[in-house]
């Protein structure tokens, strides 16, 4: 990054850090949603952006993380800080199983994506029938008003806001470290050309499996957050295809494979949705589907004019990152 980019990044961080002190409940709740999508977008980006593996079923890992941690809390009183470990473990186990099936048996490209959808759909339908987890009727976490118990992730919206902000910053730092590591170089090589990567010594199976493991573990944490933030889980919602698509949109809009892209994408998409709701209500045009229509048009416009994402373009225009060939 250039000096200007770092200054802007630090400023944005500071602004987010003080936001709950100056903003009202609505602002905090919208920002929490933004940050949640930024976080899971980053997690998804590890697979698609870094390693070229298109997962269209990432809601699966959100759901597993959510249900595992919620079940531990509801049935055994085990708090999320311990529960998230098992949540991540289960998520990684399922993720690497899908990866194993895909990579061992040569299920590539679009067919791998179909495999990820299939597993998410099986989970959606399957969880409807697990009565221990509430089935289709949903699983509910006990809510007590006025309780502040950060150790069990029970408390005010502000607590949740800071938790998700920390997760976003953590995922950003982790992504950056990984991308500049030996593994990160190998991921990028596999993404660009698997055959050439293999010829220079990259173990394709191992590289892809680690990408799936990192991505599914991170995404599971997003699920844990979701369970304790909303306090209710329905298979129809958490595992839905629509949710899987919502997870991939921030990275697509912001810039697949970039570090800041998924975060910027979330900051564009959620306010866009909120803004449209506001405008439609203010205009008195309460027609069903109108918001989705405008949302879709806006998405198409962004993707058509900035196919590589908004972040690479913005970074170039505002000289936020060093351009190839520029000296430090």
């Amino acid at each position: 990054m250039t000096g200007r980019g770092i200054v802007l990044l630090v400023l944005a961080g500071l602004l987010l850090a003080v936001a709950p002190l100056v903003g009202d409940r609505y602002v905090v709740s919208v920002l929490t949603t933004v940050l949640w999508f930024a976080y899971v977008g980053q997690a998804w980006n590890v697979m698609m952006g870094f390693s070229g593996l298109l997962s269209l079923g990432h809601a699966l890992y959100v759901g597993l993380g959510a249900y595992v941690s919620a079940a531990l809390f509801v049935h055994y009183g085990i708090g999320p800080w311990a529960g998230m470990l098992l949540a991540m473990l289960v998520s990684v186990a399922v993720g690497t199983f899908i990866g194993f099936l895909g990579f061992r048996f040569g299920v590539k490209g679009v067919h791998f994506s179909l495999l990820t959808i299939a597993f998410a759909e099986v989970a959606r339908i399957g969880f409807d029938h697990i009565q221990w987890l509430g089935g289709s009727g949903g699983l509910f976490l006990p809510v007590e008003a006025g309780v502040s118990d950060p150790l069990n992730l029970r408390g005010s919206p502000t607590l949740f806001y800071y938790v998700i902000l920390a997760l976003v910053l953590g995922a950003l730092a982790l992504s950056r470290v990984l991308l500049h590591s030996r593994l990160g170089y190998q991921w990028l090589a596999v993404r660009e050309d698997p055959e050439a990567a293999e010829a220079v010594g990259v173990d394709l199976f191992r590289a892809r499996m680690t990408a799936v493991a990192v991505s599914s573990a991170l995404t599971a944490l997003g699920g844990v957050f979701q369970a304790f933030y909303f306090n209710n889980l329905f298979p129809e919602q958490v595992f839905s295809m629509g949710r899987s698509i919502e997870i991939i949109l921030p990275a697509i809009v912001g810039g697949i494979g970039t570090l800041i892209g998924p975060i910027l994408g979330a900051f564009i998409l959620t306010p866009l949705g909120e803004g449209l709701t506001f405008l439609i209500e203010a205009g008195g045009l309460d027609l069903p589907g109108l918001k989705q229509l405008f949302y879709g048009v806006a998405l198409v416009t962004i993707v058509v004019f900035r196919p590589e994402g908004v972040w690479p373009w913005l970074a170039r225009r505002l000289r936020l990152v060093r351009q190839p060939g520029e000296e430090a």
Partner: protein
Amino acid sequence: MTALLTVSGLSKRFRGLKAVSNVSFSVPEGRILALIGPNGAGKTTTFNLIAGVFPADEGTVTLKGTRLGGLKPNQICAAGIGRTFQIVKPFGALTVEENVVVGALARERSVAVARAQARAVLERLELADQAARPARSLTLPDRKRLEVARALATRPTLLLLDEVLAGLRPTEVDRMVEVLRDLNRREGLTILMIEHVMRAVMALSDQVVVLDHGEKIADGTPAEVVADPRVVESYLGAEEA
């Protein structure tokens, strides 16, 4: 003279078509061997069999006495064989330097050390001033050089070059020939090259193996091979026509 690479009775069929048929030759340590022949003679298939892209139907490949059969391409690379692709395969979105860093990381765990090694290799291949450019923006001659640089960065004992001179202008061919000769003479790098540019083959190679319709039809010094009537008929003569 000990053989670094020995190919013995190698055969490969694709749906009944004999791509490579009972081919045997060996590459002595520290030498340059050129594999020539008309299009479709089975040269690239032979390369892919050596590099582990697909398994041979019959025959064996040994490197320094170790059988390479059944190994995957990344394991072949670890064993000490670096290769280039006839149709260049740069990591397009990565910079030239990052491309070569990936190669260096085959034997190096530290990214910083790998980067230093990559810079040295780029210097050698006259690509240092392009280091920060995205690989996809390079011209074809530079992409060919990048292929060699990336393979070289894996520190191979045997380098497989698949038509790295094709499409280059004569002056560029001469520069690349110089680089390859230097690698061979000064560092003792053994090279097995598929090549159509006969001028370079004559200038560089110690030994030439000629393939035609998947079979070996000649094996000897460059002078012997170009005088061989079968070679003239199947390959060299055809080129003049």
